[in-house]
């Protein structure tokens, strides 16, 4: 929802509506890019003036060149090496792992959360175990998951699942529990039978909270991906970062980090967009 006070002044009367919308969009983009642009300029100035050691802090121009080479490849590059043009291979491997772990977490977390929200008995039996398991840091799971699943793909997916599972479970449980009792009573007095109540009221009412859980879970999925991939898988953005460190390529480390951030952001937008129509009624929906 557009906040009126931050909207730019209207263009002259008579401007076509699409024109106005486009202008507003350009304005928003400009404001979003202002701070990063300033940082890049200061960074470049600091490197050029010799305040920062280029080996630890390469210039933005160097990072940009590396990004171009990493993504698109450059056969004429004198430093043609294993990373040139390998972005899509790594990104695809990472994306598949994140999606696999995340979807398993959704498949387990949402139904279990809904069941917890409805049945206190079930929650009392299972929840204590989960609450003790939940605070164990993801890095502490690393040795065990390597023992169980071996080094690589499956251990990484397992850790992504763990990281995404708990936020999804907890937000879904809370979402069902805090459904306004008046909505349930309203449904009852309108003729809703007990077994219709779940699909008619509890599920739709808890959708905004479930969406919040999915977004937090997806964020954790990317964290766990990098932790898993840095332990020695051949492909993936996390492994590219780890390899770049071995080669002392700070520029490539930065490119890898920025690209993970960018893909993480885009994946969040996809989730939000997929839910936008179903939860647009919710006043506290963060977009």
């Amino acid at each position, binding site marked *: 929802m557009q906040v009126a006070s931050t909207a730019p002044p209207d263009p002259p009367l008579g401007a076509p509506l699409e024109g106005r919308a486009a202008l507003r969009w350009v304005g928003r983009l400009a404001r979003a890019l202002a701070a990063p642009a300033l940082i890049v300029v200061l960074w470049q100035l600091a490197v050029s003036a010799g305040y920062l050691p280029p080996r630890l802090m390469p210039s933005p121009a160097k990072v940009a060149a590396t990004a171009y080479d990493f993504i698109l490849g450059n056969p004429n590059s004198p430093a043609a090496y294993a990373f040139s043009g390998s972005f899509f291979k790594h990104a695809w491997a990472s994306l598949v792992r994140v999606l696999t772990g995340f979807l398993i977490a959704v498949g387990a977390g949402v139904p279990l959360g809904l069941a917890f929200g409805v049945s206190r008995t079930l929650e009392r039996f299972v929840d204590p175990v989960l609450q003790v398991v939940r605070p164990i840091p993801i890095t502490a799971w690393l040795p065990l998951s390597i023992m169980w699943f071996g080094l690589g793909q499956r251990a990484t997916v397992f850790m992504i699942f763990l990281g995404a599972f708990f936020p999804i479970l907890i937000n879904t449980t809370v979402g069902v529990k805090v459904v306004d009792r008046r909505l349930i*009573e309203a*449904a*009852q*007095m*309108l*003729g809703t039978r007990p077994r*219709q109540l779940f699909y008619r009221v509890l599920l739709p009412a808890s*959708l905004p909270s479930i969406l919040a859980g999915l977004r937090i879970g997806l964020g954790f999925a990317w964290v766990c991906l990098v932790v898993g991939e840095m332990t020695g898988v051949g492909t993936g953005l996390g492994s590219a970062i780890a390899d770049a460190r071995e080669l002392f390529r700070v520029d490539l480390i930065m490119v890898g980090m920025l690209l993970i951030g960018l893909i993480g952001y885009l994946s969040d937008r996809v989730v939000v967009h997929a839910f936008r129509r179903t939860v647009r009624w*919710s*006043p506290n929906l963060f977009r």
Partner: protein
Amino acid sequence: MATLKVEVRNLSKVFLEPVSGTRTEALRGVSLTLGANEIVCLLGPSGCGKSTVLRVVAGFEGPTAGTVLVDGRPVTGPGPDRGVVFQEQALFPWLSIYQNIVYGPKIRGVQREEYDRLARQYIEIVGLRGFESHYPHELSGGMKQRVAIARVLINSPAVLLMDEPFGSLDAQTRTAMQEWLLDLCQASPWTILFITHDVDEAIFLADRLYVMTARPGRIKMERVIRLPRPRPLDVLTTPEFMELKREVLESIRSEAPALAAPATVEPGAR
């Protein structure tokens, strides 16, 4: 009053706090009746249990003692024959206005053409044509309450249970809604149990009113309101209205706990 739509006999209600074990006696021996097409207001100081009476009739709470009959049958739980209009808005926020209104017939398996016809009719009656595809959060308070009324009327309930339905509206909207409700009942009569703490509202709307005591709630007074119908708003300034209001106010005031008079602060004492 040919037939009794609702009969509450000797209703008592005690709430037990499960953790602390505290007993709260909310109602003691409440008896009241609603005749067909009658508007009955239940008036009382806050916390007197008037909403509890409505919640027992609605079937949200069971009685501790006593019986509640609707159309001669005992109440066993909530159902579409008793439409409830809550004070706070309780529309389904994820459904459009149209979907909110057709919710009842739809869930009971009424055919699409039939509930669509009913929906058009009730959207017209509550004056919300053009807002069918809006969502509740896009509507004003008064409009939301008209949707809340339409979604229960479409179920053709035996009785409408209204729990301070205009209590959270601003004064102008509240008066407009009261007049609108009377017009609605003038056009096609409904049996209404109306809970309020507003004396003007109760006398203006009611065919008959009950005043309750402070907790534990009992019926203290019953009055038939013989003001003519249709009842224009200026009935509020007639001597008959004033006389009724004085009588009811006195009855209620004797129930409200007296507040201590504010202490005088010496100038400069702060």
